[in-house]
């Protein structure tokens, strides 16, 4: 049994504070906040102590927070530094929304656990789809947003903001402006701001506070003096009021305060603390190290027994404690006050701070809140304990995709602790590698290995949970997987294979994650050496491992590779089955959309294209678009364009095809797969087929290809392209010595046959047939083509033949005369526009520009409605969004379609099959 689970949501973070009685009414600000309901984002941005939280609490609680007479629902989330972990941040956001929308976000939370690292856009898309049906205005307040400094969280927020449903309103209270596109939002009227200048108490508000609320009965001059000295800073006015309460010589205090130029808070806190009993002052200082306080925790830190009643008294006396629940159980200090207290503690008793943190760590550990216990252990510099605790929660945090939190802890632990608990060092190595950082990874792995060689290997008798023991059992295999991964990144195929094999030997039958990883790494290495049979076996086995543990995303990812391998092997039908099986699995899984689905549709589109079923191919590509960008893995963007280019070319739109290939080249992402079909080579083939032989020859020159090159699988596609270009050149310029090309093709054929690359063999034979035809060797030509046809028929190849145009048609006719067959007849009669024979310009005009960026689902909705009689406001109503939103979508889709009018957009949409 696991000793501890990661802590569930801390409810105090989601507590919407109740307004305290006797507030200063601030109608001028309330009106501004109400306007925020018509905008997307409301930012309350001001330093500590400016009354941001109070303002929002009062607003939400009052009739002011209402729209069209209906009370809005307020969801509250108080952020802290630990929320820089995206998995934690979004889990809390969903938690906050659930306080007003029970049960919302179930699928989103599921997705959060499904992917590593969390596929935030996918999670948010799912959540937003659910929220788009909101029937009441809902305000989500994120308090203390300035604690967030992790770019992934900001990126997620920007995405949320860009797709915010009409009735969800986002409010950020912060000390620093958030790195979101504020200027753009401001310009489009989607941002309402309340800033320091707005929040400062005016003289009138200061008077109302000091006299009406605090009952100080000050004259106008005194109020004016205090307001001037504090510059309307609310926290300072509160401290001043506190200092004056019960004081006989109020004027003397005011004179002293206003005549002094010390930092306002320093002066006032001194005044307040001086008047407190020594033991209470000590209580404040010692408990200031806490982020949240409860009676027994305070007792632990102060040695008292009455912590709870002290906290209640502090609240009663307005001593800057804020209740965090309705039961008077948890409190926190006002942030500014806490900082001042901490500063004093550090100055007066620097030696006690670490001790207080370790005491807090012990208390939290006893309560089972390991996350807080670790935080305080690190602050208390008790690294040994921190290491022990991190080790305990490692498996559970991994499972919950809390990598960012783990990473933060691991980076904070000193070397000896990592070495003493090598699953931690190993986890740090893995975390760094997964974010593309390889600094120090070797050292960490070496240290782990050393530990395994030494005494540690005998698993000394530390008390650990079963899950941690399991981590230690897996350590040798994990280490080998990491070594293999590192070798792959460095391009060291041999070492990759060696370590992947070692990992497979070490890994337990039940450890499907490590088995899958090791198989995939070994498979990738085999693939890049051209050993496709081994690669295929490895990937097929790897899929089984991931399927067994329901790692659907990994199954989809590996299916891309497996499909690619099968295509090269000439097993087109197997490839289609691979994609379909992966899609079926994703469908059967309890949460339907998953990253990687789009890639499967692209794979299927390519199969349809080869079978010359262009409509079906287009349909598959359209499916990808419907799924949205976030359903694609990194390679999807370029692969999608390569397939669409093939379709365009088959339809006779060569310019469009070349444009798409240009885009694909820009978007190319290898993602560790060997670059076996480089986009420039694909484009060179298109050029060569359509008469732009010079451009194709330039390509071959630039890449540095020659017929004398030694052959390797990695360059096979390029070499075959070179041969195709030279054959086309001979045809167009009646020059060149094709016999050398034929010899080269013979070599390629031999290598491909030997490597079991059936798909390559078909293509090479087709090219040989064309070369021999050009040489006048009709007999050899027909024989080569017949060999290609024999392999191609069972797999249903079509375009590989049709793409070769008129010369191929002539050859097919010759074959049919000798040995008629249904397959050849089908190829001959397959409809295909005559390929263009005039040279193709490399850049095209605007006539056939295909959208650079796909339309979003929302943009497609708008486009569909543009094709109706509805006007703008009607479209907005139809889609339940604001007119502004419709305008934005329209503007974006015009841009993407390259049009400037509604009619043109509709026409273009039809051309692109978007309507």
């Amino acid at each position, binding site marked *: 049994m696991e000793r501890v689970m990661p802590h569930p949501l801390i409810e105090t973070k989601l507590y919407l504070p109740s307004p305290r009685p006797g507030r200063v009414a601030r109608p001028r600000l309330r009106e501004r906040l109400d306007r925020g309901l018509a905008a997307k984002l409301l930012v309350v941005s001001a330093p*500590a102590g400016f009354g941001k939280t109070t303002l929002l609490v009062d607003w939400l609680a009052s009739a002011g927070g209402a729209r069209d007479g209906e009370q809005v629902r307020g969801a509250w989330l108080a952020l802290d530094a630990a929320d820089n972990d995206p998995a934690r941040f979004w889990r809390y956001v969903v938690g906050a929304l659930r306080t007003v929308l029970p049960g919302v976000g179930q699928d989103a939370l599921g997705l959060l656990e499904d992917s590593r690292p969390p596929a935030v856009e996918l999670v948010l898309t799912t959540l937003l789809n659910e929220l788009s049906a909101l029937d009441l205005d809902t305000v989500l307040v994120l308090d203390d947003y300035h604690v967030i400094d992790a770019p992934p969280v900001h990126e997620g927020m920007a995405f949320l903001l860009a797709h915010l449903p009409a009735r969800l309103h986002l409010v950020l209270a912060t*000390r620093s402006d958030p790195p979101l596109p504020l200027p753009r939002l401001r310009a489009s009227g989607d941002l309402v701001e309340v800033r320091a200048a707005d929040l400062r108490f005016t003289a009138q508000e200061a008077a109302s506070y000091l006299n009406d609320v605090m009952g100080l009965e000050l004259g106008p001059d005194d109020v004016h003096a205090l307001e001037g000295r504090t510059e309307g800073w609310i926290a300072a006015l509160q401290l001043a009021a506190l200092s004056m309460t019960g004081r006989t010589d109020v004027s003397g205090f005011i004179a002293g305060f206003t005549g002094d*130029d010390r930092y306002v808070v320093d002066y006032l806190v001194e005044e307040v603390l001086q008047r407190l009993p020594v033991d209470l002052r000590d209580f404040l200082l010692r408990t200031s190290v806490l982020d949240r306080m409860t009676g027994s925790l305070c007792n632990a830190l102060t040695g008292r027994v009455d912590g709870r009643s002290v906290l209640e008294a502090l609240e009663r006396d307005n001593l800057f404690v804020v209740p965090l629940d309705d039961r008077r159980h948890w409190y926190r200090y006002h942030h500014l006050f806490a900082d001042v207290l901490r500063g004093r503690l550090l100055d007066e008793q620097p030696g006690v701070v670490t001790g207080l943190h370790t005491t807090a760590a012990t208390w939290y550990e006893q309560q089972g809140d390991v996350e807080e216990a670790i935080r305080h252990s690190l602050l208390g510099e008790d690294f040994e304990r921190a290491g022990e605790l991190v080790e305990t929660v490692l498996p559970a945090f991994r499972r919950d995709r809390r990598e960012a939190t783990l990473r933060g802890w691991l980076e904070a632990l000193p070397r000896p602790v990592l070495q003493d608990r090598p699953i931690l060092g190993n986890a740090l190595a893995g975390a760094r590698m997964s974010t593309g950082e390889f600094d120090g990874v070797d050292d960490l792995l070496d240290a782990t290995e050393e530990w395994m060689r030494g005494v540690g290997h005998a698993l000394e008798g530390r008390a650990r949970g079963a899950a941690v023991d399991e981590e230690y059992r897996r350590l040798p295999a994990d280490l080998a997987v990491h070594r293999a991964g590192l070798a792959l990144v460095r391009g060291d195929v041999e070492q990759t294979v060696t370590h992947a094999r070692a990992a497979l030997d070490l890994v337990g039958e039940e450890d499907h994650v490590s088995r899958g990883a090791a198989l995939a790494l070994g498979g990738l290495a085999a693939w890049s050496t051209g050993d496709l049979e081994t690669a295929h076996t490895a990937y097929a086995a790897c899929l089984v491992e991931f399927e067994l543990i329901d790692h659907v995303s990994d199954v989809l990812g590996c299916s891309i590779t497996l499909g690619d391998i099968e295509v090269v092997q000439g097993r087109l039908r197997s490839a289609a089955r691979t994609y379909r099986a992966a899609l079926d699995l994703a469908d059967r899984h309890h949460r339907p959309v998953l990253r990687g689905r789009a890639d499967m549709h692209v794979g299927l589109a390519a199969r349809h294209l080869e079978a010359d079923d262009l409509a079906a191919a287009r349909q598959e590509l359209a499916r990808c678009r419907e799924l949205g960008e976030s359903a694609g893995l990194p390679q999807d963007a370029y692969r999608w364009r390569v397939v669409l280019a093939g379709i365009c070319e088959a339809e006779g739109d060569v310019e469009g095809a070349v444009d798409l290939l240009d885009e694909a080249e820009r978007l190319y992402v290898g993602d560790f797969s060997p670059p076996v079909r480089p986009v420039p080579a694909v484009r060179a083939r298109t050029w060569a087929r359509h008469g732009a032989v010079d451009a194709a020859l330039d390509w071959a020159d630039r890449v540095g290809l020659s017929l004398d090159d030694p052959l390797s699988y990695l360059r096979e596609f390029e070499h075959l392209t070179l041969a195709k270009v030279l054959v086309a050149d001979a045809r167009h310029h009646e020059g060149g010595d094709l016999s050398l090309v034929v010899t080269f093709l013979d070599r390629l054929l031999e290598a491909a046959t030997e490597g079991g690359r059936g798909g390559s063999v078909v293509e090479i034979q087709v090219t040989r047939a064309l070369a021999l035809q050009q040489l006048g060797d009709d007999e050899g030509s027909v024989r080569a083509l017949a060999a290609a046809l024999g392999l191609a028929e069972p797999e249903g190849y079509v375009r590989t033949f049709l793409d070769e145009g008129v010369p191929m048609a002539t050859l097919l006719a010759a074959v049919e005369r000798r040995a008629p067959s249904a397959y050849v007849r089908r190829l001959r009669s397959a409809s295909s526009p005559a390929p263009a024979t005039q040279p193709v310009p490399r850049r095209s005009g605007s006539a056939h520009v295909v959208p650079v960026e796909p339309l979003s689902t929302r943009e497609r909705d708008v486009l569909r409605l543009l094709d109706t009689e509805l006007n703008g406001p009607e479209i907005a109503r139809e889609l339940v969004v604001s007119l502004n939103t419709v305008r934005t979508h329209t503007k974006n889709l015009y841009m993407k379609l390259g049009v400037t009018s509604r009619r043109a957009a509709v026409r273009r949409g039809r051309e692109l099959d978007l309507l």
Partner: protein
Amino acid sequence: MDQLRTAVDPAPDEGWYRIRVRGRLDQRWSTWFGDMSLTGGEDGTTVLRGRVGDQAALHGLIEKVRDLGLTLLEVSHEAPDAAAEPDR
């Protein structure tokens, strides 16, 4: 990250910094601000001065200034010889 560093600040990012804030800040804040020295000026401002490990540490200090609600007036990097004064 190395690239960014080169692009933004070709000089090594550690060194001596001066941070000037409005108001007279008590000497007791020295530890809070990572043992920087605090000097009150005639003009009612305070200069925090000290060695800063790197840019992240500097931003951490500025964040502390923000969190106390202090008004930040100036941040400057000091030439090494100016820093040689024996004041800490």
